[in-house]
């Protein structure tokens, strides 16, 4: 008997149909991958299963009995645990308080037993010993942790509830390989215990590494469910996209000009150590390596969000004092973050306002005509194939991938000459990625220079002309031409991670 079955689920938000004809069956002892492009409804389906949304139509059965949850609390009581893509952590509370939120160990008089809470958390943290970082302890404040550490804490929080059905929504997005391995070990243990796992990911290799079965959704509908052994990468991509597409492998060469657009020399800050590079006109320079080795910090420093303590930055040969984002914008530098919830979108404001934010920041006049702004923004909206019900709808109504498109369109509208992309495709579907790569190619041919940090190594190697490998805030290797291979990248990133010198020596461009 299936442990969980959702059938004929329909959900509508205003005029947009998010789900119509969604099915999902979950057996015990199963890891079930749920894939589909962004906006296909998989997150909505999971929210319905988790009780945080109510379905308009459809049936949800747990152990063969129909259930309907009034809220996440009831779903949790029924044994459903959720790893939320946007995390459900309270930044100002400690790791212990977060992991056991709502389930604090009780002592005398029903009061929270703080010692037991700390000990239980220490035991939970031990599960991820070696991949979590020494600075993470029960009393650490979550706001002080990095993105990957927060994701691991969210995993521990889900596991602490001892759920029978677990939904992992993009649980590995910010994790490096070792961390992913540790999470997979936990998921396999759940499976051994007869529990069922729904695993949502955009990384195809994770589907084939971990899942027993896979369900593909497209446009709110379940289009395919198959045992993993009976399907292939191409078949899944085909089901997701709905039409034949050229293979994901893309390798095109830009022809960067000799002129240097952005030059950094000996940059140093809290997270950067003597970083030097030259970005040429029309070039895509990749920033790779393990997670959190200073790639994001470099981009944010160049945009003037984080302070630079040492070194110089030159834009077109003239020194840049990155005093703040406005100064960077005046030099035609734009910054797109993959962490859209934190740095990208104004969630409750209309899509339109989100789109024109950067245009307005540049505007010198006191008043601007809305129609005129719409005229400026529309070509970019169309180029990125943004899906929305109305420009006046709040941006929070869009799926993650579409929100990301809003942020990208916002910056394209100001026609930057240097584009800083900070993991821009995090949690974005294949189709949107292809749209974005095409846009990047187009921009490069127009002479725009791009600094790209990506957590997707394959993407980085395929898209960037050169890749700088970071470790501990330093550039430990530069890969160009034929050296741009996964093996070379991992060698450089991991060799230095153990303190040994990189085996791939830096090559001149």
């Amino acid at each position, binding site marked *: 008997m299936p442990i969980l079955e959702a059938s004929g689920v329909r959900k509508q938000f205003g005029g947009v149909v998010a789900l119509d004809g969604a099915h999902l069956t979950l057996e015990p002892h199963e890891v079930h991958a749920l894939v589909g492009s962004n906006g296909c409804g998989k997150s909505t389906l999971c929210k319905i299963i988790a009780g945080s949304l109510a379905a308009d139509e459809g049936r949800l059965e747990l152990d063969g009995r129909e259930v309907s949850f009034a809220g996440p*609390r009831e779903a949790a009581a029924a044994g459903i645990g959720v790893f939320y893509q946007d995390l*459900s952590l309270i930044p*100002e*509370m400690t790791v212990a308080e977060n992991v056991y939120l*709502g389930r604090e160990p009780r002592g005398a008089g029903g009061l929270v037993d703080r010692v037991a809470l700390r000990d239980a958390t220490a035991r939970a943290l031990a599960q991820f010993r070696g991949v979590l970082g020494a600075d993470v302890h029960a009393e650490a404040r979550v706001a002080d942790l990095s993105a990957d550490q927060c994701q691991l804490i969210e995993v521990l*929080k889900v596991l602490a509830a001892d759920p029978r059905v677990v939904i992992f929504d993009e649980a590995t997005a910010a994790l490096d390989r070792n961390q992913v391995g540790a999470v997979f070990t936990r998921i396999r243990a759940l499976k051994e215990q007869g529990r069922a796992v729904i695993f949502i990911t955009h990384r195809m290799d994770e589907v084939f590494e971990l899942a027993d079965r896979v369900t593909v959704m497209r446009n709110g509908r379940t289009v395919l469910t198959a045992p993993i052994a009976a399907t292939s990468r191409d078949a899944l991509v085909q089901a997701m996209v709905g039409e034949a597409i050229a293979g994901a492998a893309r390798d095109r060469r830009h022809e960067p000009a000799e002129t240097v657009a952005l030059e950094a020399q000996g940059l140093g800050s809290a997270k950067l150590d003597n970083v030097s590079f030259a970005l040429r006109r029309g070039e895509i320079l990749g920033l790779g390596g393990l997670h959190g080795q200073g790639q994001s910090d470099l981009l944010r420093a160049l945009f003037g969000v984080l302070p630079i303590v040492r070194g110089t930055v030159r834009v077109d040969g003239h020194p840049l004092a990155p005093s703040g984002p406005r100064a960077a914008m005046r030099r035609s530098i734009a910054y797109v973050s993959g962490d859209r919830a934190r740095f990208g979108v104004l969630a409750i404001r209309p899509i339109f306002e989100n789109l024109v934010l950067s245009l307005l920041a540049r505007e010198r006049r006191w008043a601007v005509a809305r129609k005129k702004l719409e005229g400026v923004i529309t070509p970019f909206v169309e180029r990125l194939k943004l899906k929305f019900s109305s420009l006046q709808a709040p941006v929070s109504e869009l799926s993650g991938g579409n929100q990301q498109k809003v942020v990208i369109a916002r910056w394209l509208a100001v026609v930057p000459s240097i584009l800083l992309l900070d993991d821009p495709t995090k949690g974005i579907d294949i189709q949107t990625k292809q749209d974005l790569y095409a846009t990047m190619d187009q921009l490069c041919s127009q002479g725009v220079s791009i600094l790209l940090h990506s957590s997707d190594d394959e993407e980085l190697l395929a898209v960037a002309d050169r890749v700088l490998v970071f470790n501990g805030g330093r550039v430990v290797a530069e890969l160009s031409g034929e050296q741009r291979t996964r093996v070379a990248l991992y060698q450089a990133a991991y060799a230095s991670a153990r303190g040994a010198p990189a085996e791939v020596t830096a090559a001149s461009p």
Partner: protein
Amino acid sequence: MNLALSTRRRPYLLALAVFLLLCVINTILQPSFLRFGVAASNVAAFLPMALVAIGQTYVVLASDIDLSAGTIVSLVNVVVVSIIDGMGGSGVSIALGFAVGLALGIAAGLFNGLCVAVLRFQPIVATFASGIVFAGIALWILPEAGKQVPPVVYEAYSGALLGVPTVVLILLAVIGFAQFVARSPFYYALRATGGNMQAAYQSGVPVARVRIGAYTISGLFSALAGLALVGETASGDPLIGGALTLSSVTAVVLGGTALKGCIGGVAGSILGAFILGLINNVIFFAQLPFEWQGLIQGLIILAALAGGVVMARGKNG
């Protein structure tokens, strides 16, 4: 760095420093400040504001605000005095009056909580409006200050039990209550709600119940403040609590509790209330013109708040 870290763990440390500084200044200006009787009378004078601030703290920790707290004080004050006066000041009337007063405060807080957490009204608007209603009822019950309670009430309030002033006993009792609450699962849920309401909801925290609980506690403490004022003034006044709303918010913020929720606690708010009281003392004993009181009070509060902001920056920088 160490100081910044410790203010994060104990956000009331800055308030404690300001409090001690004001104690020193007050002692210089008024050498009798440290005498037992004077200290006890100061506690008696500051207690109502401290009580309202304690209640307000719980609401603010959930990132809400209670702008009706002061008017609940007024309402409870006039209702209790009217009941005692109307029933002739017997022992039964006093007990009944106090019980009704506490129940009224709880009911008013519950009403606020329902408006905010169930009907989803904006906390500022909802409690501002309900405050006008409470103030209106208070004026309707007792249009102008007056009526008397029997001497036993204010004698008990200003008196002592086993050598310990009643007001100090009350303060110790509410601190004990706050300690109890701070260790309850409710308090964890409360801070989670204030820290990130959506995440708390998704984590299964009963957010609506928690917010209603916080407003109810605020109503209860406003009622306690109303009773304390009955003991302090021995009469009813429909306008007595009006100024307490904003001073309670000020005390909460001075005490290191963040208006955005999650961070802070009751200890800071008590210190904050005492700071506000001591500022008035200092102004009085420094023989500054009464008209300066508002200005100086405002400047001291601004300085204290700026100090907190600077420290927070140091921590992030």
